[in-house]
């Protein structure tokens, strides 16, 4: 959904549809909505405080009149994505998972009983409206839903976990009343946390030094441990571990290397088609890429749990594999979901790469853009201006 002006805020309230019922005002966990009073009827309207709003989507869920739209919760877009996923895999079961929870393949397999189930990632499973789940089932997109929201303590969007449990429980009881097997929706609390492979750990202490949550610790005789209670899965420790001894499912060194190799094929195709291939590393919170039209765009995307996971090694590998440009999309520092450390870490990591690349005249090929997740157009703008820059270079 495109905003009418560039950089438009990711949440809009249609004043004509809005009945001023104020349900959203009361429900907002961040107190970002207020009903403005006034003499004239035009003056009474619901206003959103852009500073406080976290775009969690709860108001969108609760609004009885569909007067609120939230950027990445376009119901139609999500349904379409789900539809495509199920069609591509031929599966009738669908996993809906929070971005943050990022369930491991193993945990999905444990729950669902087999592999290969398509996974639809939404920013927060708790914020997606119940309607969405209904429609997935009623429109025949899927026959079974496995929802993997984050554990309460792990939720980065405040109370999303709790809300999702309440909602889904309610949903199941509703289904039961309709005499539908409540088991078609399952709920599994999930987390994706970093783990240390002790055999590879050399006890250098980098993880402890850079962890924003004080979850990683190195003690004599020199093996790192990660406190499960504290780890928030940002992946910064992976980027600073000299021996690749830490893993975060989906984002380990091997997985990223494999994914890069696959993308390299796409890059080669683009070059054959006369297009300059570009790789975009994006923080999962900063940006949700739309699948590019056709195969010829040459833009490839690699998701990071947090921009701080960005490994300069991967940037250089990307250039070696034939990408003409590498763009990193990170959240603006004050919006960083990881105690502001992620954005800062990404900037520092990237500046060290750029310094090395500048000796080869290549520093212009690598850019980092800090975008505001609340202004979804910023990411689009950053991407298109980077593409233009790369295209324009001979």
């Amino acid at each position, binding site marked *: 959904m495109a905003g009418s002006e560039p950089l438009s805020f990711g949440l809009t309230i249609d004043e004509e549809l809005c009945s001023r019922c104020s349900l959203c005002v009361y429900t907002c966990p961040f107190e970002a909505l207020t009903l403005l009073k006034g003499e004239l009827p035009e003056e009474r309207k619901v206003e959103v405080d852009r500073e406080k709003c976290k775009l969690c989507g709860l108001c969108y869920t609760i609004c009885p009149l569909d007067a609120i739209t939230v950027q990445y919760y376009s119901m139609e877009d999500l349904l379409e994505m789900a539809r495509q996923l199920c069609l591509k895999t031929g599966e009738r079961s669908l996993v809906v998972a929070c971005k943050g929870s990022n369930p491991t393949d193993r945990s999905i397999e444990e729950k669902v009983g087999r592999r290969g189930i398509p996974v639809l990632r939404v920013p927060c499973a708790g914020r997606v409206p119940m309607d969405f789940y209904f429609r997935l089932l009623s429109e025949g997109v899927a026959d079974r839903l496995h929802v993997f929201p984050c554990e309460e303590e792990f939720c980065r969007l405040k109370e999303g976990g709790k809300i999702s449990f309440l909602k889904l429980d309610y949903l199941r009881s509703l289904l039961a009343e309709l005499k539908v097997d409540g088991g078609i929706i399952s709920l599994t609390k999930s987390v994706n946390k970093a783990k240390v492979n002790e055999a590879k750990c*050399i006890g*250098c*202490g*980098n993880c402890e*030094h*850079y962890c924003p949550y004080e979850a990683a610790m190195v003690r004599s005789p020199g093996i790192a441990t990660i406190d499960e209670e504290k780890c928030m899965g940002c992946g910064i420790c992976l980027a*600073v*571990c*000299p*021996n*690749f001894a830490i893993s975060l499912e989906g984002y380990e060194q091997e997985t990223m290397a494999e994914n890069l190799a696959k993308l390299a094929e796409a890059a080669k195709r683009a070059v054959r088609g006369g297009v300059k291939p570009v790789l975009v590393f994006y923080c999962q919170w900063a940006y949700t890429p739309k699948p590019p039209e056709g195969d010829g765009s040459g833009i490839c995307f690699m998701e990071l749990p947090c921009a701080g996971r960005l*490994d*300069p*090694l991967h940037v*250089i*590998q990307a*250039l*070696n594999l034939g990408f003409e440009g590498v763009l990193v999309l990170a959240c603006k520092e004050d919006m960083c979901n990881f105690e502001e450390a992620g954005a800062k870490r990404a900037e*520092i990591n990237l500046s060290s790469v750029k310094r*090395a*690349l500048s*000796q*080869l005249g*290549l520093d212009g090929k690598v850019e980092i853009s800090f975008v505001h997740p609340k202004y979804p157009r910023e990411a689009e703008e950053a991407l298109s201006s980077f593409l233009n820059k790369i295209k324009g270079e001979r």
Partner: protein
Amino acid sequence: MIVVKPKPIDEILGFLSKHKNVLVVGCDGCTTPPRGLREAQTQVNLLKLAAKLKGISLNLKASTIAKTCDKHIVYSTLASQLEGIDAILSLACGIGVQVLNEVFPQLPTYPGNDTIFNGMQEKEGGIFEERCKACGSCILGETGGICPIARCSKSLLNGPCGGCFEGKCEVTFNGEKHDCAWYLIYQRLKELGRLEDFKKLRPLKDWSLLVGPRSSMGV
């Protein structure tokens, strides 16, 4: 921590261009800034990119050693990895580069980094600062735990000199003014109620303890 900084790529390619198959070896010993396997792999990729751009053909492999300052460990780790290799690029400090040359004299080992100082790490941005010059006659017990040999630009024993202004040293490094070590010593000793230690007239230093090459034999 022995702190290093990367050598310019051109200089490294200058060493390596006479060779065909190079083993880039990291070091896990002092790993911040990281010099382990990750750094070796990053360096391999960077050199591949550079070689491609300059039309130099070079085969590069990455490896690492637990600590390069130990001849035995160096030998046992790398001896089996040198098949077909005609040069080694070491990311260790100057010590490691020399050890590799001694342990494998048949192969040239080149430095990938410049060794710059012994220091400690601040949390913000991982910046390192020099703390010890290995001068051989430590006076930290008298100066409240602050070393004037490493942290005073002039390594004075009876400072501060006239160049201390607002607690900062007159010398600028990379645009930054660092704290006057003697001002820090004055403040610390005052805090500890030991200003008589500050006032003490320290006699001439034995600088011959810094003359190399030093050895721990008979020490």
